[in-house]
């Protein structure tokens, strides 16, 4: 069984079905991507996995343990960390303090003796923000602010990292750096689940891709198979363009 198992999750908002029996998984040591057009339900699924939304039906398991009834903070304590598409940084605090708060919490709730409080600077360095460490985060451009969110998530020493569009707002060079970082994290044994619109980045770094459209998983497989999958092409390009005459 995988570290993260999403089992037939459905989410309805009134009459609108945002997620329709979505099943997917993510494994340690791998970068798993979740792609799909705008409005496909990717962020909704992230919110369900981390507990900010309760699903209408279905279950989420982390390491065989059902998370479905747990509050978000308890899920985080089991090793689940995330970033947000619309940044959720603590703008009154500096980069260092943002990471520090997460590290201090982890030192408090962890039972494995891990104390990331001494690693704050190295975590910030890892995402390439050492120069900005004592700046207030609301002074940072969006791309760098996204990296602060990643650093903060890493400070909780997670087993599963959910990244919601981490590359948006990054320039090409930064994007490339992010790709390296993601591969490194997977190599460290982390399960990384990423939602991203930058198809090039996704194809470069992912081991496995799930494609979501209108709340359903329409395809999954390795990057090469996804690239040529007719259903994926239809969803992204529109069926009328599928077979140009």
């Amino acid at each position: 069984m995988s570290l993260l198992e999403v089992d037939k999750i459905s989410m309805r908002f009134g009459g609108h079905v945002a997620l329709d029996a979505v099943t997917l998984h993510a494994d340690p040591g791998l970068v798993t991507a979740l792609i799909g057009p705008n409005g496909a339900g990717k962020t909704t699924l992230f919110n369900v996995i981390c507990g900010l939304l309760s699903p209408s039906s279905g279950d989420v398991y982390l390491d065989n343990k059902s998370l479905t009834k747990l509050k978000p903070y308890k899920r985080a304590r089991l090793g689940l960390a995330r970033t947000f598409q619309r940044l959720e940084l603590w703008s009154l605090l500096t980069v260092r303090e943002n990471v520090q708060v997460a590290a201090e919490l982890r030192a408090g709730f962890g039972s494995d003796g891990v104390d990331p409080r001494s690693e704050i600077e190295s975590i910030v360095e890892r995402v390439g923000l050492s120069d900005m460490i004592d700046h207030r985060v609301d002074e940072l451009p969006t791309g760098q602010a996204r990296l602060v969110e990643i650093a903060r998530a890493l400070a909780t020493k997670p087993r599963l990292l959910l990244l919601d569009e981490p590359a948006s707002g990054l320039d090409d060079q930064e994007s490339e750096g992010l790709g390296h970082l993601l591969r490194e994290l997977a190599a460290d044994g982390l399960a990384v689940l990423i939602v991203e619109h930058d198809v090039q980045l996704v194809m470069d770094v992912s081991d496995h891709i799930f494609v979501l459209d209108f709340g359903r998983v329409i395809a999954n497989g390795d990057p090469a198979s996804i690239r040529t999958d007719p259903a994926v092409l239809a969803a992204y390009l529109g069926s009328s363009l599928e077979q140009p005459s």
Partner: protein
Amino acid sequence: MSDFLSFTIVGLATAAIYAIGASGLVLTYTTTGVFNFAHGAIGMLGAFMYWQLRFDWGLPAPLAFLIVLFGFGPLVGVLLERGIFRGLQGTSEAVRLVVTVSLLFAMIGVANWIWDPQENRLSEKFFGGSSFKVIGEIITYQELLRVGAAVVVAIGLRVLLYRTRAGIAMRASVDDRPLAALNGARPDRSAMLAWAIGCSLAMLAGMLYVGGIALEAQSISLLIVNAYAAAMVGRLRSLPMTFLGAIVIALVQTYWGAYVPQGSEAAWAQYFGQSIVFAIPILILFIVLLALPAARLRGHGLTRTREFYPMPSWVGASRFAAIVLAGALMAIPLVAAKDSLTIAKLFGTGILVLSLVPLVGLGGQVSLCQFSFAGIGAVTMSHLGGGSPIGLVYAMVFAGIVGAIIALPALRLSGIYLALATAAFAVFMDRWVWKLKPFKLPFTDVTIDLFGTAGSLSVERLKIFGFDSGAKGKVLGMNLSPEDRQLIVMAVGFVAVAMVVVAIRRSSFGRRLLAMKDSEAACATVGMNVTGTKLAIFSTSAALAGLGGALIGVANQSTNADNWQFLNGLPVFMIGVVGGMGRIGGALFAGISLQVLNTMAAWPVLNTRFLGMGPAPEGWYSKFAFASPGFMGIGLGRNPNGAVSDMRVGFEPILMSRRALAIVSIGIVGLYVATLRVDALNGWIFILGTVVLLIVGAQIGKSDAIAKGTLEPDPDPSIEEFDGTHLEWVGIDRPVTDTDIALLDSKLGLTREALA
């Protein structure tokens, strides 16, 4: 059965008033996002205006009624929307809250200003109290008017919101203001309409309520708390549920008053039974809060804020402590014993504001009941203290526990509910708990006795480490009266609490609080138990308030229920926010301001004691002093960091230049010694001289620092400032005007000629 019917009719008539009041509240909240704590005060103004027209000026009742309903009501609504509420778009919930609470306070102040509260104003019953009979039941025309008005309001609002273009535009602008505007609606106009109708409904409720009773500004304004409970049943959204809530609350209240034994043998039933009638709506409010589902954690995206919470250093905090303690000690020889006590109370108020700094400033949570916690502290100190510092510990523990119990139901919900719950708790204490006479708990031998039979308790003065604060005589060569000793105790208490607050800000807990204020969703996803954190800070804050209350009780040597009324506590909250909730200096500012205002309110005392200018003229300034915290709070929003932040920027240069520091310190010490030695100089001259020295010192320091290059000279105001607003904030702080564009064009050289 017949009794039951007539009680039901009375209950329904009361329900009608609650429903009308609550529906106006729900209407303005849902259409503008502003929860108006001053709604009841607007109703109170309506009632007073009606009284003025009808009974003082002798207009016919229907005419007076219609003038208030369709004239004053909409007018006040439009003025408030244009003058205050429009400016609150896009501000934080806390700022909106402070502004409406300040408005409540200011309106009561204004009403007491215009209509002297000493005078008895009876508003007669409508239709002269005449009645008619239906199936054997007497129904007064006044009751019929109340119920009829509620029915008309219910139908009218339904038609307005669902059948008219204006109403649909109003509902649309709640969902998405810019989107509604893009679709041709005018959100500003919708908001204005909502405020006009909301204020008219408030005034209608106010006028209907006062038929047959004597007008009293504060109690009518607080009637709104009953309406909150009804509005909460409708979850601040649903008008039908709000009406249902009003009916349930009023009927429970009426039946309780009618059927629960009163004046029976058992003392507990007598006291328990009678006064709790007034607290029933609040009990229902709490039950509803418990029943509401927890709010979903929502993100809001990264916000850029002008708020600034600097990390205080221990050096800076120690310097602050030293200045405060030195100031207190230096004041003793300058002022009479009685004035030592006045200054001591300033620190008491300061402690109460300090208790809010971690809660409001760091945690972003609101409490409107710090005075109730302070009251609990004072009562505990009286009963368990006996002059021992352990009493202070008990005071903190009790207040902290009660704080946790109060906060628990509301903390699961969003900010406005916590504000409501705390306001409701304060009124609950006022209406019931503080009024309890000693009674035996049923089936036990335990006697509950808060303020004793006399309604007032004595509090013994503290004896700490051999220092008896109630004694006279010399300590370390200084001749100290008991009042002087209170000043020392309070100053030490203030400094101690200030250090606790600094420690909280510097700790990991402090960082967590600031994080929580910013994004609760992010906190939860890194493993923070947000509800637990809120609970911890709320009860810590309550405990600090309890300590403040206990110390105030000790300084006064007594405490009674009147000391801790909800309305008395509001200025502390408002001025605290104005002073700046992020800094300990803000608390000192608030303490000094409130003490100055209180002293102004008691001008004759101040005058004879310090100035000797003979009897005071008419006491308008005392009324102004009462209302002014309200006016100050309304002006908030322009500077969310508070006044102290600005002052600090102004005086900081003194510390940047040794020359300035030397001039100021030597000057103050010299002035002080001169004041002690020379009879012609008094405390006021010393204070004035100190202020002058500080201002001069700041100027010297500034020029020195600019010369040294450690401080940037002031920028050219014509470039940086646009009509008092920094260029970057034009369009955010206030709309862009044609003058701004013309000025920008001229700076950029985009003149008509250049463009041509």
